[in-house]
């Protein structure tokens, strides 16, 4: 398969997943606010700040808006064309990548992502607010699920499909670390067992990962911070846990190269294999020993490293010049598609 095609499939999948994740976070926070007493500006800010931190766009937000109100945050993360990770931009980028490879993906996939794009382009903040943002976010999530289902059901599960899996699970793992990290203050504070707003908050985090029911089924217990962290990082079977995502992407990488388990043929496989082993042999205590914030930062850097290694191994053929003292990646920064490879108009 062409390297450029692999690159487009990988990023198409990452951006589609990113759009869904942003919709999830916004949706849950809005619902959480409904359960709380009337909120003043300071309280609103306190609730939205972690969201902006988890999407990694905090400083950008301040450039465009003076107040951190619900409307402003929704506008910024949903429709703002200047925010490269707004939902509309994520969907546009995903669709642009799909357009690059439309003869490679199935017709149904293309039509679905194109439909989502056209629908998204027709949205305004007024429209979203009028129909209720929950309805809107549900449509974004459903579009993503539909796209994934169509992908699984209409595309041959070969190398191209595996690149889509790699992109999706890397993005999903990254987002889960961000959601946890953004809320680590609450984790540190360890509210008393009766603290209702703490429980509400943790329930919200579970819901933003679609894991509320799965959690209850697994623990048959109250929502407790420790268990939430354990579930979202270390659970073996939940499809949005970091361990599950790492294992799935590791499998996909091995199918791409044909390399067997416990071995590696390139840096991406080495890093992914190592991360899987580490998560397989970790327990909650290990996370607590390192400290939640630090642990999440380290995870993000590792995921970043895997993404970078995939790019160097598969997506960009000529050997890249060795970068001079490349700065350590900022964990808060989201990985974006490398520019400069885009084609210029004829």
């Amino acid at each position, binding site marked *: 398969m*062409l390297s*450029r095609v692999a690159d487009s499939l990988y990023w198409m999948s990452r951006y589609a997943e990113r759009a869904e994740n942003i919709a999830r976070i916004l949706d849950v926070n809005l619902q959480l606010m409904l359960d709380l007493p009337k909120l003043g500006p300071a309280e609103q800010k306190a609730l939205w700040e972690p969201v902006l931190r988890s999407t990694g766009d905090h400083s950008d937000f301040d450039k465009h808006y003076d107040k951190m109100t619900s409307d402003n945050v929704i506008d910024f993360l949903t429709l703002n064309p200047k925010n490269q990770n707004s939902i509309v931009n994520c969907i546009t980028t995903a669709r642009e990548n799909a357009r690059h490879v439309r003869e490679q993906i199935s017709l149904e996939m*293309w039509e679905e992502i*194109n*439909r989502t794009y056209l629908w998204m382009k027709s949205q305004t903040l007024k429209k979203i607010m009028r129909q209720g943002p929950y309805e809107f976010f549900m449509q974004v999530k459903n579009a993503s699920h539909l796209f994934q289902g169509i992908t699984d059901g209409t595309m041959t599960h070969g190398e191209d499909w595996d690149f889509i899996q790699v992109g999706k699970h890397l993005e999903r793992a990254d987002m889960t670390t961000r959601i946890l990290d953004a809320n680590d203050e609450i984790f540190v504070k360890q509210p008393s067992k009766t603290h209702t707003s703490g429980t509400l908050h943790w329930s919200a985090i579970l819901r933003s990962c679609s894991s509320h029911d799965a959690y209850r089924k697994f623990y048959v217990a109250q929502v407790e911070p420790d268990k939430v962290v354990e579930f979202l990082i270390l659970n073996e079977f939940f499809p949005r846990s970091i361990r599950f995502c790492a294992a799935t992407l590791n499998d996909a990488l091995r199918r791409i190269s044909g390399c067997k388990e416990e071995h590696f043929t390139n840096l991406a496989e080495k890093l992914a294999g190592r991360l899987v082993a580490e998560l397989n042999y970790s327990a909650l205590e290990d996370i607590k020993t390192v400290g939640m914030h630090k642990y999440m930062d380290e995870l993000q850097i590792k995921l970043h490293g895997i993404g970078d290694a995939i790019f160097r191994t598969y997506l960009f053929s000529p050997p890249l010049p060795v970068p001079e003292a490349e700065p350590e990646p900022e964990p808060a920064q989201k990985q974006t598609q490398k520019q400069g490879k885009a084609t210029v*108009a*004829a």
Partner: protein
Amino acid sequence: MALLDKYQPGDFFDEMFASENEVRPHYSALFERFQNLDREEFESRKNAVDAAFLRQGITFTVYSDEQGTERIFPFDLMPRIIPAAEWTKIETGLIQRMKALNLFLKDIYSDQRILKEKVIPAEDVLSAKHYRPEMVGVPVPKDIYIHICGSDMVRDREGTYFVLEDNGRCPSGVSYLLENRVAMKRAFPHLFSSVGVRPVDHYTQDLLTVLQYIAPKTSSYPPTVVLLTPGIYNSAYFEHSFLARQMGIQIVEGQDLVVQDKTVYMRTTKGLEKVDTIYRRVDDDFLDPKVFRKDSVLGVPGLVEAYRAGNVSLANAIGTGVADDKVVYKYVPDMIKFYLSEEPILANVPTYLASNPKECEYIVKNLDKLVVKSANESGGYGMLVGPASSAGQRADFKQKILENPRNFIAQPTLNLSRHPSYTDGHFEGRHVDLRPYILCGEKISIVPGGLTRVALKKGSLVVNSSQGGGSKDTWVLYGDS
């Protein structure tokens, strides 16, 4: 009231009506069907077709728009019909023309017999902007230069067909032909069998056969064929990706290809893979920055060298643009006589060259009656339609012509044929042309029909999509009615 009740054919050759009350026999079944539709039903079908085009992204990119807006190519639901006998003449005429054009290109890039024998003035050919001296003495596979051609044809007041231009570089639009047919089959499924329409879907298979046929002898079997596109921002990207998908071949951009030891490879996740034939949708100028435009980022450095070495085949060949030059166009009937010793089956539009002092004088005097075209523009740009022009525009063109006479030709303003087209609740006559697509491999074949383009603006003669044109499905019948 039925949709066609008040239709006025006007003082034109109308494709459907012989006179106000007389439908041409090959249109009678269609006429009955459309008369049975009311406005509401017709529009609901039309909206369904438009929505499907948008959903599938069957669009072209508007260059002038910064946001890179994609638009659907307006589609008129009333098809254009060509009876069998008429089509046979077009077909044989175009095949004759293709043979002559390929012999001409072979000749001017080798012995230049036609120039030496002064059948065509050498300076008119050698001064053509797209003549490529780099190609002289370079053999091309099977001696075919133009593999894919999209000739533009028009009809005059009497209904006679003329070839307006040959488009032997990278003609586009064939994907619309194929998609229009799919849309019509969905909108009017029962009409097809009752009218007896010849199918078109084999086009992409035929195209692939041609591309495999011209692959270098050293190729593996089956040869690796790719389509080279300028990228997703090109206005015809939809077509590139459509054709690649239909043929099951890779679509590549310049950055995906690399030349080593005069051999072209594509970069894949498993390393380099040899490429045998490139169906390139990139103009000569941008193909190889080592040979042509240095600033091209769309091409592949070293491609021309690999091509000259015979390690990779290109469709179309480099240098076919000389035959697209509108000055050279004038001589196609002479080529047919010279190479084939035959009389041309299809007529050329009479053409005056500004580079000829006598003809130039005539052009300048009659600017208000003529259509002036630059020799090398396409897409309806760089053109003056005399009768519709202002005095200022004519003065402007006069100056341009006198400054650079080699670059201009003029033709009489043809009274192009019209076809009923839907506008705002009823049908009105609009000017149409026809672009059949010719494939030239082991044999020459033409997909029955072609793209009928229609000037949707009332009175307009310009059918190009960039200038407010639309298209129609084109039906070639098995029989004559």
